[in-house]
């Protein structure tokens, strides 16, 4: 029904420059969803599955968990779409549902981990990090530095995983998903100023943690 070209042109998917026609089209689309139109829901999944999966993968750090979670997010959206009143954009609401479910899953995984089951991927080996000192992503153009670059990636991934979910959430939504502060505010349910201060703290913590593990300042 909707191929890649259709998806790119879909008013619900298109970023920026929202017109009245787009809003009307989105409203009709939401009405179809609220009436439990299965084909409309198929369209919705096709439109958002990549974005939802990417967000969850960044939050959870595991592909299998992210895929399972993405399916669960869409099931919950199917159940709750009748309650969506259109106060925010549909995409913002979907992000909000995704983030909330993801944080619940992270708490569950953390509980399981604390009970003894290791749910995390093996972390980067400390010995290998010494060789990666002083390497930034800008330096990874040379093939002989690729391995070092890979090690930095592992350190950064590890540091992100160590961030508190509330900080990780704003960092990913702003710096990786490129959402506005207003959207962040709607998704997290926090005041605008709180979002900004939390984001600042998240960046500071991540930077400090990476620098501590790398042994020198980020250039």
């Amino acid at each position, binding site marked *: *029904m909707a191929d890649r070209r259709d998806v790119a042109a879909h008013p619900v998917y298109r970023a920026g420059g929202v017109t009245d026609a787009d809003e009307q089209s989105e409203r009709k689309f939401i009405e179809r969803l609220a009436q439990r139109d*299965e084909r409309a829901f*198929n369209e919705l*999944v096709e439109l958002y*599955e*990549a974005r939802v*999966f*990417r967000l969850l993968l*960044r939050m959870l750090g595991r*592909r299998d968990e992210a*895929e399972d979670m*993405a399916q669960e997010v*869409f*099931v*919950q*959206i*199917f*159940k*709750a779409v009748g*309650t*969506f*009143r259109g*106060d925010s954009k549909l995409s913002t*609401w979907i992000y909000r*549902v995704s983030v*909330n*479910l993801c*944080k*619940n899953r992270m708490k569950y995984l953390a509980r399981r981990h604390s009970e003894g089951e290791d749910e995390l991927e093996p972390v980067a080996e400390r010995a290998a990090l010494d060789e990666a000192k002083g390497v*930034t*992503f800008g330096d*990874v153009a040379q093939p002989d530095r690729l391995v070092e*670059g890979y090690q*930095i*990636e*592992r350190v*950064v*991934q590890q540091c*992100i995983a160590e961030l508190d979910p509330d900080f990780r959430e704003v*960092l*990913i939504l702003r*710096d*990786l998903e490129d959402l506005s502060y207003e959207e962040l*505010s709607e998704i997290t*349910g*926090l*005041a*605008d*100023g*709180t979002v*900004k*201060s939390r*984001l*600042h703290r998240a*960046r500071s913590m*991540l*930077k400090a943690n*990476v620098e501590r593990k790398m042994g020198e300042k*980020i*250039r």
Partner: protein
Amino acid sequence: MSDPGTDSSHDAGHDVEGSETATAHEPEESLRSMLRGALREEEPPPNVLAGVQKRIRERSKGKFYADGWSTAKHPPLNTYLVTSLLMLAILIISYALLSPLVGSPVPVRNQPVPVQLIPH
């Protein structure tokens, strides 16, 4: 609006950080590029539609996505067409095979039989 899985621990008006001074800083580009590099996608995202449809079908006990037709991405026009033609062909073949066996009805002549009276 009620959101599934809402995390009630973060109320906009009661967050402990709400009192902090909002210090909006533009992202440090090196940190941002480092993040993007570390969390870049290497594999394409999976197709979750089939899994979502299966979960909804199971949890709604078949109320939604009840059959194979409705779970298809596109209306299965070819399947409908092939099935119709196949059924038509079967009917024609059946008729052609069975019609010779069904001949015209043979007329039966019933001769009147004389009645014999039994004397007492």
